[in-house]
Protein backbone atom coordinates (compact mmCIF):
# COMPACT_ATOMS: atom_id res chain seq x y z
CA UNK A 1 0.00 0.00 0.00
CA UNK A 2 1.23 3.41 -0.89
CA UNK A 3 2.19 5.65 1.99
CA UNK A 4 2.84 9.35 2.42
CA UNK A 5 6.11 10.82 3.53
CA UNK A 6 5.07 13.26 6.24
CA UNK A 7 7.14 15.95 7.88
CA UNK A 8 5.80 18.11 10.70
CA UNK A 9 8.18 20.87 11.64
CA UNK A 10 7.99 23.82 14.00
CA UNK A 11 10.59 26.56 14.39
CA UNK A 12 11.87 24.71 17.45
CA UNK A 13 12.14 21.18 16.19
CA UNK A 14 11.12 18.48 13.76
CA UNK A 15 8.14 16.92 15.50
CA UNK A 16 7.54 14.05 13.17
CA UNK A 17 9.15 12.59 10.09
CA UNK A 18 7.86 9.27 8.88
CA UNK A 19 5.71 7.32 6.44
CA UNK A 20 2.02 7.45 7.20
CA UNK A 21 -1.22 6.20 5.67
CA UNK A 22 -3.37 9.31 6.09
CA UNK A 23 -3.38 12.75 7.67
CA UNK A 24 -6.31 14.85 8.88
CA UNK A 25 -5.80 18.55 9.53
CA UNK A 26 -7.99 21.61 10.09
CA UNK A 27 -7.44 24.16 7.36
CA UNK A 28 -8.92 27.62 7.03
CA UNK A 29 -11.70 26.10 4.90
CA UNK A 30 -12.46 23.17 7.17
CA UNK A 31 -11.08 19.81 8.06
CA UNK A 32 -9.44 17.82 5.29
CA UNK A 33 -7.95 14.38 5.12
CA UNK A 34 -5.05 13.62 2.88
CA UNK A 35 -4.58 10.19 1.41
CA UNK A 36 -1.78 9.03 -0.88
CA UNK A 37 -1.82 10.52 -4.41
CA UNK A 38 -3.50 13.69 -3.24
CA UNK A 39 -3.41 16.63 -5.61
CA UNK A 40 -0.66 19.15 -4.85
CA UNK A 41 -2.06 21.64 -2.39
CA UNK A 42 -0.98 24.55 -0.28
CA UNK A 43 -3.28 25.65 2.49
CA UNK A 44 -3.38 27.57 5.72
CA UNK A 45 -3.89 25.72 8.97
CA UNK A 46 -5.94 26.95 11.91
CA UNK A 47 -5.62 25.94 15.54
CA UNK A 48 -6.81 22.39 15.87
CA UNK A 49 -5.79 18.80 15.82
CA UNK A 50 -3.73 16.74 13.47
CA UNK A 51 -4.64 13.09 13.26
CA UNK A 52 -2.03 10.90 11.68
CA UNK A 53 -2.88 7.32 10.86
CA UNK A 54 -0.05 4.89 10.51
CA UNK A 55 -0.03 1.28 9.51
CA UNK A 56 0.85 -0.52 12.70
CA UNK A 57 1.92 -3.77 11.13
CA UNK A 58 2.71 -3.73 7.41
CA UNK A 59 2.63 -7.54 7.21
CA UNK A 60 -1.08 -7.78 7.96
CA UNK A 61 -3.09 -5.47 5.81
CA UNK A 62 -6.49 -6.84 6.80
CA UNK A 63 -8.77 -5.44 9.47
CA UNK A 64 -8.22 -2.36 11.54
CA UNK A 65 -4.50 -2.23 11.41
CA UNK A 66 -4.11 1.47 12.00
CA UNK A 67 -2.39 3.33 14.75
CA UNK A 68 -3.44 6.89 15.43
CA UNK A 69 -1.25 9.75 16.49
CA UNK A 70 -2.87 12.87 17.87
CA UNK A 71 -1.25 16.27 17.81
CA UNK A 72 -2.34 19.80 18.63
CA UNK A 73 -1.27 22.57 16.31
CA UNK A 74 -1.71 26.32 16.60
CA UNK A 75 -1.85 27.45 13.04
CA UNK A 76 0.62 27.17 10.21
CA UNK A 77 0.68 25.86 6.67
CA UNK A 78 0.38 22.57 4.93
CA UNK A 79 2.00 21.78 1.63
CA UNK A 80 1.09 18.63 -0.21
CA UNK A 81 3.59 17.67 -2.89
CA UNK A 82 3.52 14.57 -5.08
CA UNK A 83 6.23 12.89 -3.08
CA UNK A 84 5.72 14.31 0.39
CA UNK A 85 3.55 16.31 2.76
CA UNK A 86 5.05 19.12 4.77
CA UNK A 87 3.30 20.74 7.70
CA UNK A 88 4.85 24.01 8.82
CA UNK A 89 3.33 24.56 12.24
CA UNK A 90 3.73 27.62 14.43
CA UNK A 91 3.68 25.34 17.42
CA UNK A 92 2.80 21.68 17.60
CA UNK A 93 2.64 19.16 20.38
CA UNK A 94 1.93 15.49 20.69
CA UNK A 95 -1.23 14.68 22.61
CA UNK A 96 0.65 12.76 25.27
CA UNK A 97 2.86 15.76 25.99
CA UNK A 98 0.04 18.20 26.68
CA UNK A 99 -0.63 19.03 30.30
CA UNK A 100 -4.42 19.25 30.58
CA UNK A 101 -4.50 21.24 33.80
CA UNK A 102 -2.10 23.80 32.47
CA UNK A 103 -4.00 24.17 29.23
CA UNK A 104 -7.19 24.87 31.21
CA UNK A 105 -5.39 27.42 33.29
CA UNK A 106 -4.02 29.12 30.22
CA UNK A 107 -7.52 29.40 28.75
CA UNK A 108 -8.83 31.02 31.91
CA UNK A 109 -5.97 33.44 32.04
CA UNK A 110 -6.34 34.43 28.41
CA UNK A 111 -10.09 34.90 28.81
CA UNK A 112 -9.60 37.12 31.82
CA UNK A 113 -6.99 39.14 30.00
CA UNK A 114 -9.30 39.51 27.07
CA UNK A 115 -12.03 40.83 29.33
CA UNK A 116 -9.89 43.17 31.34
CA UNK A 117 -7.25 44.52 29.10
CA UNK A 118 -8.88 45.18 25.79
CA UNK A 119 -7.01 48.06 24.33
CA UNK A 120 -7.36 47.61 20.61
CA UNK A 121 -8.56 45.17 18.02
CA UNK A 122 -5.13 43.73 17.53
CA UNK A 123 -4.79 42.67 21.14
CA UNK A 124 -8.27 41.22 21.12
CA UNK A 125 -7.33 39.12 18.13
CA UNK A 126 -4.15 38.06 19.86
CA UNK A 127 -5.97 36.85 22.98
CA UNK A 128 -8.62 35.15 20.91
CA UNK A 129 -5.97 33.33 18.95
CA UNK A 130 -4.37 32.29 22.20
CA UNK A 131 -7.63 30.95 23.56
CA UNK A 132 -8.27 29.06 20.35
CA UNK A 133 -4.84 27.54 20.51
CA UNK A 134 -5.26 26.42 24.11
CA UNK A 135 -8.74 25.06 23.40
CA UNK A 136 -7.32 22.99 20.60
CA UNK A 137 -4.63 21.67 22.90
CA UNK A 138 -7.17 20.81 25.56
CA UNK A 139 -9.41 19.04 23.09
CA UNK A 140 -6.56 16.95 21.79
CA UNK A 141 -5.38 16.10 25.29
CA UNK A 142 -8.86 14.97 26.36
CA UNK A 143 -9.41 12.96 23.23
CA UNK A 144 -6.13 11.22 23.77
CA UNK A 145 -7.06 10.40 27.35
CA UNK A 146 -10.44 9.00 26.31
CA UNK A 147 -8.87 6.88 23.64
CA UNK A 148 -6.38 5.48 26.05
CA UNK A 149 -8.92 4.58 28.71
CA UNK A 150 -11.44 3.30 26.17
CA UNK A 151 -9.53 1.87 23.26
CA UNK A 152 -12.53 -0.08 21.94
CA UNK A 153 -14.61 2.99 21.19
CA UNK A 154 -13.85 4.92 18.07
CA UNK A 155 -14.48 8.58 18.48
CA UNK A 156 -14.78 9.79 14.94
Amino acid at each position, binding site marked *: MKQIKLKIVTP*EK*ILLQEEVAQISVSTA*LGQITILPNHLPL*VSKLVSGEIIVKKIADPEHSRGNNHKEDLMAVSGGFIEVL*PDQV*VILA*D*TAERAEEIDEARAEEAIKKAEELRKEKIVDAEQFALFTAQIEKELARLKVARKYKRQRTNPGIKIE
Partner: protein
Amino acid sequence: MELVAASKMRKAVARVLASRAYSDLTWATVLHLCQKLDTSRHPFFRPDKDAKNIAIILISSNRGLCGSFNVNLVKKVVDSIRVHHPNSKITDIVSCGTKGRDEARRHRLNLIADFPKDDITISTEAIRPISHLITREFLAGKYDKVFVAFTDFQSAISQVPHVQQLLPIVPKIDERLGHIIHEKNKSEEINVDSFADFLFEPSTRALLDAFLPRLLEVQIYQTVLESEASEHSARMFAMRNASDAAADMINELTLAYNQARQAGITSEIAEIASGSAAVEAG
Protein backbone atom coordinates in the same frame (compact mmCIF):
# COMPACT_ATOMS: atom_id res chain seq x y z
CA MET B 1 34.17 31.44 31.45
CA GLU B 2 35.28 29.38 28.54
CA LEU B 3 33.27 26.48 29.91
CA VAL B 4 30.21 28.65 30.48
CA ALA B 5 30.40 29.94 26.92
CA ALA B 6 30.95 26.41 25.65
CA SER B 7 27.81 25.08 27.30
CA LYS B 8 25.77 28.06 26.06
CA MET B 9 27.17 27.50 22.62
CA ARG B 10 26.09 23.88 22.59
CA LYS B 11 22.53 24.88 23.42
CA ALA B 12 22.49 27.67 20.86
CA VAL B 13 23.87 25.41 18.17
CA ALA B 14 21.24 22.79 18.91
CA ARG B 15 18.55 25.45 18.47
CA VAL B 16 20.01 26.67 15.19
CA LEU B 17 20.15 23.20 13.76
CA ALA B 18 16.61 22.44 14.91
CA SER B 19 15.12 25.52 13.30
CA ARG B 20 17.07 25.20 10.06
CA ALA B 21 14.73 22.45 8.94
CA TYR B 22 11.75 24.74 9.41
CA SER B 23 13.26 27.70 7.62
CA ASP B 24 14.49 25.48 4.80
CA LEU B 25 11.03 24.05 4.30
CA THR B 26 9.46 27.48 4.49
CA TRP B 27 11.77 28.62 1.74
CA ALA B 28 11.02 25.53 -0.29
CA THR B 29 7.30 26.27 -0.04
CA VAL B 30 7.81 29.87 -1.10
CA LEU B 31 9.85 28.73 -4.06
CA HIS B 32 7.08 26.35 -5.09
CA LEU B 33 4.53 29.11 -4.73
CA CYS B 34 6.64 31.49 -6.77
CA GLN B 35 6.98 29.04 -9.59
CA LYS B 36 3.26 28.54 -9.78
CA LEU B 37 2.04 32.05 -9.19
CA ASP B 38 2.40 35.42 -10.72
CA THR B 39 4.03 37.18 -7.83
CA SER B 40 5.03 40.34 -9.63
CA ARG B 41 2.02 42.24 -8.40
CA HIS B 42 2.39 41.38 -4.77
CA PRO B 43 3.94 44.26 -2.82
CA PHE B 44 6.51 42.01 -1.19
CA PHE B 45 7.94 41.23 -4.60
CA ARG B 46 8.34 44.79 -5.77
CA PRO B 47 10.74 44.66 -8.71
CA ASP B 48 14.30 45.79 -8.15
CA LYS B 49 14.78 49.39 -8.95
CA ASP B 50 17.38 51.88 -7.96
CA ALA B 51 17.42 51.48 -4.21
CA LYS B 52 17.36 54.95 -2.76
CA ASN B 53 16.21 54.19 0.74
CA ILE B 54 17.39 51.15 2.57
CA ALA B 55 17.04 49.75 6.04
CA ILE B 56 19.35 47.30 7.74
CA ILE B 57 18.43 45.18 10.72
CA LEU B 58 21.55 44.74 12.79
CA ILE B 59 21.57 41.64 14.92
CA SER B 60 24.40 41.68 17.42
CA SER B 61 24.99 40.65 21.01
CA ASN B 62 24.12 42.19 24.35
CA ARG B 63 27.41 41.42 25.98
CA GLY B 64 31.01 41.96 25.13
CA LEU B 65 34.03 39.76 25.77
CA CYS B 66 33.46 37.94 22.53
CA GLY B 67 36.45 39.06 20.53
CA SER B 68 35.78 41.03 17.39
CA PHE B 69 32.27 39.63 16.95
CA ASN B 70 30.34 42.90 17.00
CA VAL B 71 33.12 45.03 15.54
CA ASN B 72 33.38 42.77 12.50
CA LEU B 73 29.65 42.80 11.96
CA VAL B 74 29.35 46.57 11.99
CA LYS B 75 32.42 46.89 9.82
CA LYS B 76 30.76 44.57 7.32
CA VAL B 77 27.62 46.72 7.40
CA VAL B 78 29.57 49.92 6.83
CA ASP B 79 31.50 48.31 3.99
CA SER B 80 28.43 46.95 2.30
CA ILE B 81 26.69 50.31 2.49
CA ARG B 82 29.70 51.93 0.89
CA VAL B 83 30.11 49.32 -1.82
CA HIS B 84 26.52 48.53 -2.77
CA HIS B 85 24.61 51.67 -1.93
CA PRO B 86 26.86 54.67 -2.31
CA ASN B 87 23.95 56.75 -3.64
CA SER B 88 21.29 55.78 -1.17
CA LYS B 89 19.57 58.73 0.44
CA ILE B 90 18.43 57.12 3.63
CA THR B 91 20.28 54.31 5.33
CA ASP B 92 18.50 53.46 8.52
CA ILE B 93 19.59 50.94 11.08
CA VAL B 94 17.25 48.91 13.24
CA SER B 95 19.35 47.37 15.96
CA CYS B 96 18.77 44.30 18.05
CA GLY B 97 21.45 43.86 20.69
CA THR B 98 23.11 46.66 22.67
CA LYS B 99 26.71 46.15 21.57
CA GLY B 100 25.83 46.46 17.92
CA ARG B 101 23.81 49.56 18.69
CA ASP B 102 26.75 51.23 20.44
CA GLU B 103 29.11 50.22 17.69
CA ALA B 104 26.73 51.56 15.02
CA ARG B 105 26.47 54.83 16.90
CA ARG B 106 30.24 55.11 16.92
CA HIS B 107 30.19 54.80 13.14
CA ARG B 108 27.54 57.54 12.98
CA LEU B 109 24.97 55.30 11.36
CA ASN B 110 21.41 56.49 11.49
CA LEU B 111 19.59 54.46 14.15
CA ILE B 112 15.82 54.58 13.95
CA ALA B 113 14.82 51.83 16.36
CA ASP B 114 16.41 49.64 18.95
CA PHE B 115 14.83 46.39 20.01
CA PRO B 116 15.90 44.67 23.20
CA LYS B 117 17.40 41.30 22.49
CA ASP B 118 16.74 38.36 24.76
CA ASP B 119 19.76 36.41 25.84
CA ILE B 120 18.02 33.29 24.64
CA THR B 121 15.48 33.76 21.89
CA ILE B 122 12.88 31.11 22.52
CA SER B 123 10.19 31.66 19.94
CA THR B 124 9.36 33.63 16.85
CA GLU B 125 7.08 35.81 18.95
CA ALA B 126 10.11 37.72 20.17
CA ILE B 127 10.82 38.64 16.56
CA ARG B 128 7.33 39.82 15.72
CA PRO B 129 7.81 43.50 16.69
CA ILE B 130 10.83 43.80 14.41
CA SER B 131 9.21 42.17 11.42
CA HIS B 132 6.06 44.17 12.06
CA LEU B 133 7.91 47.47 11.93
CA ILE B 134 9.90 46.52 8.87
CA THR B 135 6.87 45.22 6.99
CA ARG B 136 4.87 48.34 7.76
CA GLU B 137 7.58 50.72 6.65
CA PHE B 138 8.35 48.69 3.56
CA LEU B 139 4.72 48.49 2.46
CA ALA B 140 4.33 52.20 3.14
CA GLY B 141 7.10 52.74 0.63
CA LYS B 142 9.59 54.26 3.02
CA TYR B 143 12.26 51.75 2.08
CA ASP B 144 13.13 50.25 -1.27
CA LYS B 145 15.17 47.47 0.21
CA VAL B 146 15.52 45.89 3.60
CA PHE B 147 18.55 43.93 4.68
CA VAL B 148 19.47 41.96 7.72
CA ALA B 149 23.02 41.93 9.06
CA PHE B 150 23.95 38.95 11.15
CA THR B 151 26.77 36.56 11.82
CA ASP B 152 26.36 33.31 10.00
CA PHE B 153 27.23 30.28 12.07
CA GLN B 154 29.18 27.94 9.85
CA SER B 155 31.01 25.94 12.45
CA ALA B 156 32.35 26.36 15.96
CA ILE B 157 35.51 27.92 14.60
CA SER B 158 34.13 29.84 11.64
CA GLN B 159 31.51 32.58 11.84
CA VAL B 160 31.09 35.01 9.00
CA PRO B 161 29.37 38.39 9.23
CA HIS B 162 26.86 38.65 6.43
CA VAL B 163 24.38 41.15 5.05
CA GLN B 164 21.38 39.63 3.36
CA GLN B 165 18.42 41.04 1.52
CA LEU B 166 15.07 40.45 3.19
CA LEU B 167 12.74 42.60 1.15
CA PRO B 168 11.73 42.64 -1.61
CA ILE B 169 11.71 38.88 -1.60
CA VAL B 170 13.94 37.40 -4.24
CA PRO B 171 12.56 34.00 -5.13
CA LYS B 172 15.84 32.24 -5.43
CA ILE B 173 17.84 30.28 -2.96
CA ASP B 174 20.14 32.20 -0.72
CA GLU B 175 23.36 30.46 -0.09
CA ARG B 176 23.83 31.49 3.51
CA LEU B 177 20.68 30.61 5.39
CA GLY B 178 19.74 27.03 4.88
CA HIS B 179 22.75 25.18 3.64
CA ILE B 180 20.81 22.02 3.12
CA ILE B 181 18.41 23.37 0.57
CA HIS B 182 21.23 24.69 -1.52
CA GLU B 183 22.51 21.24 -2.25
CA LYS B 184 19.29 19.60 -3.27
CA ASN B 185 17.95 22.54 -5.19
CA LYS B 186 18.37 21.04 -8.65
CA SER B 187 16.43 17.88 -8.06
CA GLU B 188 13.58 19.84 -6.49
CA GLU B 189 13.19 22.13 -9.44
CA ILE B 190 12.57 19.24 -11.78
CA ASN B 191 10.07 17.90 -9.33
CA VAL B 192 8.02 21.05 -9.30
CA ASP B 193 7.89 21.36 -13.04
CA SER B 194 6.45 17.91 -13.47
CA PHE B 195 3.00 18.79 -12.16
CA ALA B 196 0.79 21.57 -13.31
CA ASP B 197 -2.22 21.49 -11.02
CA PHE B 198 -1.72 23.04 -7.68
CA LEU B 199 -4.55 23.82 -5.32
CA PHE B 200 -4.34 26.95 -3.22
CA GLU B 201 -6.70 27.40 -0.34
CA PRO B 202 -8.34 29.72 0.58
CA SER B 203 -6.98 31.75 -2.36
CA THR B 204 -3.58 32.44 -3.78
CA ARG B 205 -3.61 36.04 -2.63
CA ALA B 206 -4.78 35.21 0.89
CA LEU B 207 -2.19 32.49 1.10
CA LEU B 208 0.63 34.78 0.06
CA ASP B 209 -0.60 37.45 2.45
CA ALA B 210 -0.45 34.99 5.30
CA PHE B 211 2.66 33.20 4.23
CA LEU B 212 5.05 36.00 3.39
CA PRO B 213 4.99 37.79 6.76
CA ARG B 214 5.57 34.39 8.29
CA LEU B 215 8.51 33.82 5.99
CA LEU B 216 9.96 37.15 7.05
CA GLU B 217 9.57 36.30 10.71
CA VAL B 218 11.14 32.93 10.24
CA GLN B 219 14.05 34.41 8.36
CA ILE B 220 14.76 36.99 11.03
CA TYR B 221 14.32 34.36 13.70
CA GLN B 222 16.83 32.16 11.94
CA THR B 223 19.35 34.99 11.64
CA VAL B 224 18.95 35.73 15.35
CA LEU B 225 19.62 32.11 16.20
CA GLU B 226 22.61 32.00 13.89
CA SER B 227 23.94 35.14 15.53
CA GLU B 228 23.44 33.70 18.98
CA ALA B 229 25.29 30.53 18.15
CA SER B 230 28.06 32.60 16.57
CA GLU B 231 28.23 34.89 19.56
CA HIS B 232 28.71 32.06 22.01
CA SER B 233 31.32 30.35 19.83
CA ALA B 234 33.15 33.64 19.40
CA ARG B 235 33.05 34.16 23.14
CA MET B 236 34.25 30.65 23.79
CA PHE B 237 37.28 31.25 21.59
CA ALA B 238 37.92 34.67 23.04
CA MET B 239 37.85 33.13 26.50
CA ARG B 240 40.07 30.25 25.46
CA ASN B 241 42.58 32.71 24.02
CA ALA B 242 42.40 34.71 27.22
CA SER B 243 43.00 31.59 29.33
CA ASP B 244 45.91 30.56 27.13
CA ALA B 245 47.42 34.03 27.25
CA ALA B 246 47.02 34.09 31.03
CA ALA B 247 48.70 30.69 31.33
CA ASP B 248 51.62 31.91 29.21
CA MET B 249 51.90 35.01 31.31
CA ILE B 250 51.86 32.98 34.52
CA ASN B 251 54.69 30.83 33.15
CA GLU B 252 56.75 33.86 32.24
CA LEU B 253 56.12 35.55 35.55
CA THR B 254 56.94 32.40 37.51
CA LEU B 255 60.19 32.13 35.61
CA ALA B 256 61.02 35.78 36.24
CA TYR B 257 60.14 35.41 39.91
CA ASN B 258 62.27 32.29 40.35
CA GLN B 259 65.18 33.92 38.59
CA ALA B 260 64.93 36.95 40.86
CA ARG B 261 64.64 34.74 43.92
CA GLN B 262 67.64 32.69 42.87
CA ALA B 263 69.63 35.84 42.23
CA GLY B 264 68.68 37.08 45.73
CA ILE B 265 69.77 33.82 47.37
CA THR B 266 73.03 33.77 45.43
CA SER B 267 73.89 37.31 46.42
CA GLU B 268 72.98 36.60 50.07
CA ILE B 269 75.22 33.53 50.14
CA ALA B 270 77.98 35.55 48.56
CA GLU B 271 77.58 38.19 51.27
CA ILE B 272 77.61 35.65 54.07
CA ALA B 273 80.62 33.90 52.56
CA SER B 274 82.51 37.13 52.16
CA GLY B 275 81.49 38.19 55.70
CA SER B 276 82.75 34.96 57.28
CA ALA B 277 85.94 35.17 55.20
CA ALA B 278 86.51 38.67 56.56
CA VAL B 279 85.94 37.45 60.18
CA GLU B 280 88.39 34.54 59.70
CA ALA B 281 90.96 36.88 58.17
CA GLY B 282 90.53 39.33 61.06
